[in-house]
């Protein structure tokens, strides 16, 4: 007969005020197999744990049951306690009599009865437990960062500085992300390029960082510590080693139809181009869809003019396969498509622009060299209307906008308004707002400066519609404070459009089995306590891919993600979870159903010689890779031949619990 010990915790008054803990301890003492049963004020305290340890040793216990809070809270604690007393940590069961009993019941008799029943179930289970030993798996000391915006760059630099190798995979031809497109940045108004470019260069030159630009992750397999990624390095049609970035080809290219992505399509570029002057790597790339050579087989002007001989029309995509211990998602965001906002005449007038387009129009490296000119006629605008919350805080439907607040637009709109007033004091600036949200260090002061020092006209209310009237944009909105409808004849309208995750985020999430919310932002393992980790082990989150953020927040989060990555890569091996699935070869008929439901790809099949009472011979049977299995149990409920079982949660154990409850 096994010897089981029972420990009932009061949790101060949390449990004891609703559950008669003495009665529970007494009732459970008479269960078969129980040789010791007691209660104590705080089982998790040092004294409580010592009580458990001493009892395990004195009574030579084979298993223990703790009636306490949820196992999510202290299962790990009590397992360690058991181990310290020489008991296998998987011989510990927890009956949750706090969250499932005292916190949800009022009546003491009822609560006490339920606590006893849950205790009995745990005793029945622990008697069927078997000691389990967790396996270990090695850690590849290299990290993969997906996305080379400020988030990805910062995480990569921090991990690389700690001495680990990092690969940055960036889908566009240069790193830098959205920040590279910005003009000046709130709240200090330093120029984005001046603070970002040095980091881009540092990432490029760092001995531990390997940049894979114009590349995309195609597939990922494996698990924490040993991921395998397949990366497609798209053909640039330019030899990256030979190209010196002189830019001669970009000037000579006769095709000028390609929309300049960096300038938000406000102007065009050649088919061979370098995204912007400070691009990293500073190498040309050919956009085949606009290249005359790829369409007609002729031209080749770039090739003739390149003194480095770098143009390679026959270059092919390259597939790179590498192993990583950790993966960081830093895929960032894009502004939503403003064309859904017909009422703001975005499609009708070139002078209605999004805020990101406005950044380019104000930027010295932009299409107008930093002089603010109307895109329609190149004239200087004298009256500008900014509209906040375009497509944010909108619960209508997904095509019209996002339910969340995009968080950054109040601040960048104040920035835009202020910069315009500073550069062009003759220009009137109005901002329509619902609320001005400025919770950040020096943020509200910044916004007040726009109002008080720069005379920006903030109007509380929303714009209902914008109509094109000749050269003017007629803006009709409400002023809720004066309770009037206002009409402004503006020269330009700027839409503070909501931001949304990069469109590739969903496929990356699926590839990594990293969970996402309904808006396609990546979900953190715990919203407060584990904000930079995905619930999937080994996957970390950095930047706007997890939720709207400004640069200061992005950089802090990027550093936090790096510290988690460093913590993981510093280990030589990882201890796994022994509660994994296992197939009974005698019962398995190789039907493949478990493989199809396993979200982690942990199941494979082998032809195997099997010898049992009913079957002898070779058959196809399922094999679980214990290092990959997360113990979710999907396979066990799917298996039609009841061959799959979960160690620590076997059908046998669960049935024993149910029997004990129904007794």
């Amino acid at each position, binding site marked *: 007969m096994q010897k089981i010990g029972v420990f009932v915790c009061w949790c101060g008054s949390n449990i004891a005020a609703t559950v008669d803990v003495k009665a529970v301890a007494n009732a459970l003492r008479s269960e078969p197999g129980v040789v010791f049963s007691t209660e104590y004020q705080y089982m998790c305290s040092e004294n409580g744990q010592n009580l458990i340890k001493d009892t395990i040793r004195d009574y030579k216990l084979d298993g223990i049951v703790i009636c306490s809070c949820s196992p999510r809270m202290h299962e790990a604690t009590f397992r360690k306690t058991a181990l310290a007393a020489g008991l296998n940590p998987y011989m510990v069961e927890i009956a949750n009599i706090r969250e499932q009993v005292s916190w949800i019941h009022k009546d003491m008799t009822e609560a006490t009865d339920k606590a006893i029943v849950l205790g009995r179930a745990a005793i029945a289970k622990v008697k069927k437990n078997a000691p389990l030993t967790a396996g270990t798996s090695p850690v590849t000391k290299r990290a993969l960062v997906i996305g080379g915006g400020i988030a990805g760059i910062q995480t990569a630099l921090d991990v690389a500085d700690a001495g680990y190798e990092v690969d940055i995979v960036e889908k566009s031809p240069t790193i830098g992300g959205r920040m590279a497109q910005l003009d000046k940045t709130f709240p200090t108004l330093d120029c984005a390029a001046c603070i970002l470019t040095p980091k881009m260069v540092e990432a490029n030159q760092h001995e531990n960082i390997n940049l894979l630009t114009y590349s995309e992750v195609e597939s990922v397999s494996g698990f924490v510590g040993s991921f395998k990624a397949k990366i497609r390095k798209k053909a640039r049609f330019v030899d990256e080693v030979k190209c010196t970035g002189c830019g001669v080809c970009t000037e000579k290219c006769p095709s000028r139809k390609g929309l300049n992505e960096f300038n938000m399509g406000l102007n065009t570029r050649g088919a061979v181009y370098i995204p912007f002057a400070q691009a990293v790597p500073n190498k040309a790339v050919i956009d085949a869809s606009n290249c005359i050579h790829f369409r007609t087989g002729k031209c080749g002007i770039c090739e003739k003019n390149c003194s480095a001989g770098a143009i390679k029309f026959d270059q092919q995509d390259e597939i790179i396969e590498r192993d990583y211990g950790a993966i960081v998602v830093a895929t960032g965001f894009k502004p939503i498509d403003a064309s859904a906002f017909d*009422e703001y005449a975005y499609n009708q007038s070139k002078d209605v622009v999004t805020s990101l387009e406005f950044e380019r129009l104000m930027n010295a490296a932009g299409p107008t060299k930093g002089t603010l000119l109307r895109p329609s006629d190149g004239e200087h605008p004298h009256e500008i209307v900014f509209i906040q*919350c375009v497509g944010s*805080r*909108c*619960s*209508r439907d997904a095509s*019209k*906008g996002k339910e969340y607040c995009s968080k950054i637009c109040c601040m960048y709109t104040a920035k835009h308004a202020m910069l315009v007033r500073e550069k062009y004091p003759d220009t009137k600036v109005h901002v329509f707002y*619902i609320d001005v949200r400025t919770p950040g260090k020096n943020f509200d002061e910044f916004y007040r400066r726009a109002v008080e020092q720069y005379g920006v006209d903030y109007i*509380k*209310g*929303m*714009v*209902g*519609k914008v109509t094109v009237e000749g050269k003017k944009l007629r803006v*009709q*909105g*409400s*002023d*809720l404070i004066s*309770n009037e*409808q206002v009409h402004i004849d503006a020269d330009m309208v700027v839409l503070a459009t909501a931001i949304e995750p990069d469109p590739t985020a969903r496929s990356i999430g699926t590839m990594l089995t990293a969970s996402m919310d309904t808006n396609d932002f990546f979900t953190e393992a715990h919203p407060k306590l584990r904000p930079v980790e995905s619930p999937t082990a080994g996957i970390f989150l950095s930047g706007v891919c997890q939720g709207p953020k400004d640069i200061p927040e992005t950089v802090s989060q990027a550093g936090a993600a790096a510290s988690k990555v460093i913590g993981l890569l510093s280990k030589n091996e990882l201890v796994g979870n022994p509660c994994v699935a296992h197939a009974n070869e005698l019962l398995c008929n190789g039907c493949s159903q478990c493989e199809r439901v396993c979200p982690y790809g942990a199941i494979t099949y082998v032809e195997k010689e099997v010898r049992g009472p009913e079957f002898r011979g070779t058959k196809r049977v399922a094999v679980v890779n214990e290092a990959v299995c997360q113990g979710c149990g999907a396979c066990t409920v799917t298996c039609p031949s009841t061959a799959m079982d979960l160690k620590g949660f076997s059908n046998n154990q669960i049935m024993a619990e149910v029997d004990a409850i129904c007794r």
Partner: protein
Amino acid sequence: MAANVTTEDILRISGVNPRKCMKCGKCSGTCPAYDEMEYHPHQFVYMVERGQIDKLMQSKSIYRCLTCFACLERCPRNVEPAKLIEAVRLAVIRQQGMNHMTENDIPALLDDKLPQQAIVSAMRKYKK
């Protein structure tokens, strides 16, 4: 006079939940009849929420609304202010002897610039 019409009545007739309103004023920014109204679309929503139904029922504003549905179309929170206004009008019509006009009055008011939709909604508004 209309003391017996409650917020609940208006909400039931309209199917609108005024608590969804975030008080952005886009409805009023959009409304083509704004200047004709004593109470504007966003105020309508707020006043229904506050139970000031009497004031609304007595206001001429409810007949100034064109039922163009611009507010309903543009509201970011799907509040549908036009439906509230319609509900208040209905509440008035349902009161005995409170018809704003009879159908015989309509032909005299018609002019060729009036959109058909407005005539339909006028019939609805002022039905006996």
